[in-house]
């Protein structure tokens, strides 16, 4: 650039003006950035999300996740129905682990009421939650394999998931949208012989997980693609509000089931796997191990589940038994009031959280004491996880986006409320 100091260079010179200047010749080839839209309908976007990706070659310069394609007005819908009627809406938050949303919501409502639920109900909630933690992790790990081109692990995962969905259907009557549990306990006891069936499914499932593990964990291509990609440091993860497997993969030992045990989690012997590097490979390993731990919890819970009532015997909260409804005036009246007016949750506000499959599922509920929620807000674990995607992936390759997006496991339904 020293040439610019000489004034004669700037004078028009018809002989040389057409030639490229020396500095231009030495400059790097000018490249154009390419903007591509991944999504809203793209094989690798879970749920419906649009990633506006700015590429330089195959390197991602800028990425802008755009949500809103799955917005269904969850919060507003909840304000118009009774507390119990909110349940079907919660199913559709994280549709892969509906029971955890159900129970998390119920737990928060019970906290607002100040209600202690029966022992057996707590056990059933643990069993349901862990079943659905398994299905969620299976989908995530299987899809990770699938989207990197390995079809086989996905089908192994789906085989186990199908078994679990069958069990879920036997328990709740639905495969995905369970709407299981009621304020004060559970609406339906474990079916006859169900525990044995679950044990068998878990035996088969352990084989399938082992097989999946064998196909992926030591597969050189899989390791190359996941290890050292999609890294987020523990500090950044906490700053972004990471929870769940994605946070634990960074080396932060935080699991609400251990840190603030709810229901009966403190009675079970299980470990919380913690990663080290915060990369895709660690997130994958953490999820794989969590599945094994979930199976462990399930076995213990099914072995030690006590007999007893499954819902509180309080007709202001739980529906009276059918003979009472048909036979007594008190039963009819409470049934009518519960159905028409809803549970009279005392006025107040509460924040309560449970450990869902992808992290802390928090509920902020406000009640004005009129039988309907005044405000329902969900702290969806997928939201901060998605928010950090630009931080993680900018400057990396396009192909890294896929495993990263898979292993953070953002679920469209819960991100958009």
């Amino acid at each position, binding site marked *: 650039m020293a040439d610019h100091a000489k004034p004669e260079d700037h004078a028009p010179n018809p002989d040389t003006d057409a030639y490229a200047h020396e500095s231009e010749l030495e400059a790097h080839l000018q490249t154009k950035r*390419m903007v*591509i839209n991944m999504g809203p309908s*793209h*094989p*690798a976007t879970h749920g419906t999300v649009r990633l506006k990706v700015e*590429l330089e070659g*195959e390197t991602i310069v800028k990425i802008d996740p755009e949500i809103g394609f799955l917005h269904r007005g969850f919060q507003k819908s909840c304000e118009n129905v009774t507390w119990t009627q909110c349940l079907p809406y919660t199913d559709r938050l994280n549709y892969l682990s509906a029971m955890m949303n159900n129970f998390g919501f119920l737990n928060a409502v019970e906290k607002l009421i100040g209600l202690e639920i029966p022992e057996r109900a707590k056990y059933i909630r643990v069993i349901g939650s862990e079943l659905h933690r398994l299905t969620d992790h299976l989908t995530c790990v299987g899809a990770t*394999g*699938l*989207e*990197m*081109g*390995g*079809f*086989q692990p996905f*089908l*192994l995962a789906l*085989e186990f998931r199908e078994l679990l969905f069958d069990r879920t259907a036997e328990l709740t009557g639905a495969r995905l949208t369970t709407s299981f549990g009621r304020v004060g306990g559970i609406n339906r006891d474990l079916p006859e012989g169900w525990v044995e069936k679950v044990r068998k499914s878990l035996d088969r499932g352990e084989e399938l997980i*082992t*097989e999946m*593990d*064998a*196909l*992926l*964990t*030591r*597969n*050189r*291509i*899989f*390791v*190359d*693609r996941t*290890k050292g990609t999609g890294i987020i440091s523990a500090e950044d993860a906490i700053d972004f509000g990471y929870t769940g497997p994605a946070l634990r*993969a960074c080396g932060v030992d935080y699991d609400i089931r251990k840190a603030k045990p709810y229901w009966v989690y403190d009675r079970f*012997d299980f*470990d*919380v*796997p*913690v*990663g*080290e*590097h915060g990369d895709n*490979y*660690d997130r994958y*390993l*953490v999820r794989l*191990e969590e599945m*094994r*731990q979930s199976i*462990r919890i399930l076995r213990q819970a099914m072995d030690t589940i006590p007999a007893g009532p499954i819902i509180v015997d309080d007709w202001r909260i739980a529906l009276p038994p059918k003979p009472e409804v048909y036979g007594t005036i008190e039963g009819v009246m409470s049934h009518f009031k519960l159905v028409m007016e809803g549970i009279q949750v005392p006025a107040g506000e509460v924040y309560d959280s449970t450990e869902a499959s992808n992290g802390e599922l928090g509920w902020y509920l406000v009640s004005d004491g009129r039988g309907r929620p005044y405000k329902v807000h969900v702290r969806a674990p997928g939201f901060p996880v998605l928010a950090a995607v630009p931080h993680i992936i900018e400057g990396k*390759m*396009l*192909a*890294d*986006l*896929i495993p990263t997006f898979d292993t953070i496991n953002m679920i469209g339904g819960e991100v958009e409320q």
Partner: protein
Amino acid sequence: MSRVLTILTACITIVVAMFGGVASAYLVGGLVEEHWFTGASRLTNILFLILVFVMIIATLLTMAERKWSAFIQDRMGPNMARIGLPGLKNRSLGGLPHILTDVLKMLTKEDFIPAAANRFLFNLGPILAFAPVFALFAVVPAGPSVNVFGHRVDMVVATPDFGMLYILAIASLAVYGTALAGWASNNKFALLGGVRATSQMIAYEVALGLSLVGLFLAFSSVQLPAIVGELGSAVGLGTGQAQYLWRTDGEFDLGLPAWGIILQPLGFLGFFAASFAETKRAPFDLPEGESEIIGYFVEYSGMKFGLFMISEFVEVVVLAGVTTALFLGGHHLPFGGEWLASQPLMQEHGWLFGTILGTVFWLKVLFLIWVQLLIRWTFPRFRYDQIQALGWKILLPMGLANVFVSGALVLWDPSLRALAVLGILELGVLAVLTMTRKEPAEAGGAHGAHGGAHGGHDTHGHGLPAGAHAAHAMPAHGAAHASTH
């Protein structure tokens, strides 16, 4: 049990069909030599080898791949297409009618051309991708040259002097189809796919050629018929891969044949990996990369997409054919070939001898196709930079080293025995590496660190100890692992 029976029936049907195909190829070849003109059998070879064998196998592969992947993945596979003919009613026929439905679907779909696409190049893309892969098979000998009706019939379309160089040249033409398809679609995803395909081809062309040089040195030829070789007889010893490195004395010839895979295991691995990359199938399916960029053919529909699809399958067949001819002894039996050739029956009926060896060739091809399917359905996809690193940093130096070592050994011992000893040693090392249950040292350190994520938290002694994971490594995984590194 019924599944085993089905598979057995299918195997026997395949062998019989191949036998019939090869036999008719020889007989028709002999007939036209007799009645038309000398050399007419080469023309019928075009018909039989390329249109009948390669095309039919490729078509059946679309089915076989789905069925085989279903077996791998513990599901039924396609079985819903049925034909309402008497006697066949409600039989799935192993899913064969699906081929018909596939074709019908492809042919009846809307032929969509994006408004902003370059129409000429857009239409040219599938053709350019399709045509070269067919032409590749022209120089591959699929059976011995025998006398049929008193005329010499070769089971090869062309025997140019430049032999393998023809394959390398034509194979690199196929990338134009892919690149053009990516560019002419005027779609960003397709463009990315086209660029990926181009860079992948360039990276692997070099390794592909280099991995074969050792073989050329060993057999002093680039012609495929010369590399496959002629069987020894009373007159002289065998040549090419038909010769024996060591053999027993006696009527029945038993010994270690000089097959390419024994002389050049590294060359085989390099060639197989590189040509696998050329077929653009998993784990090298970056140009397609369906979960990332959907693929270079994203804008193609109907039969144009079908052409891309079928050209991939044709490539699989051709790759298996070339690899068989180069490294697996072509149409020769591993032993007993000379004994078989000297039988009076075989002497009398040349076509029968040719047919048996031709069937052997196609069986070897089927085996290699099966290996490719197995790899394709077991592995995840590479990343763009990893695939370049594999090509330039592993396959290329490996190929170079192989050339120098092979060259020195061929000079030192022209009987190829020294080369074979080294090859067997290499095979042994590869087998040990594959069977070993520990990770290689360089990866081991990194994994140790990750062990913290996996085994470290297991204070209660429930989960698997860190070492136990090694026991899960599946044989197929290991074998293919070795072949890609």
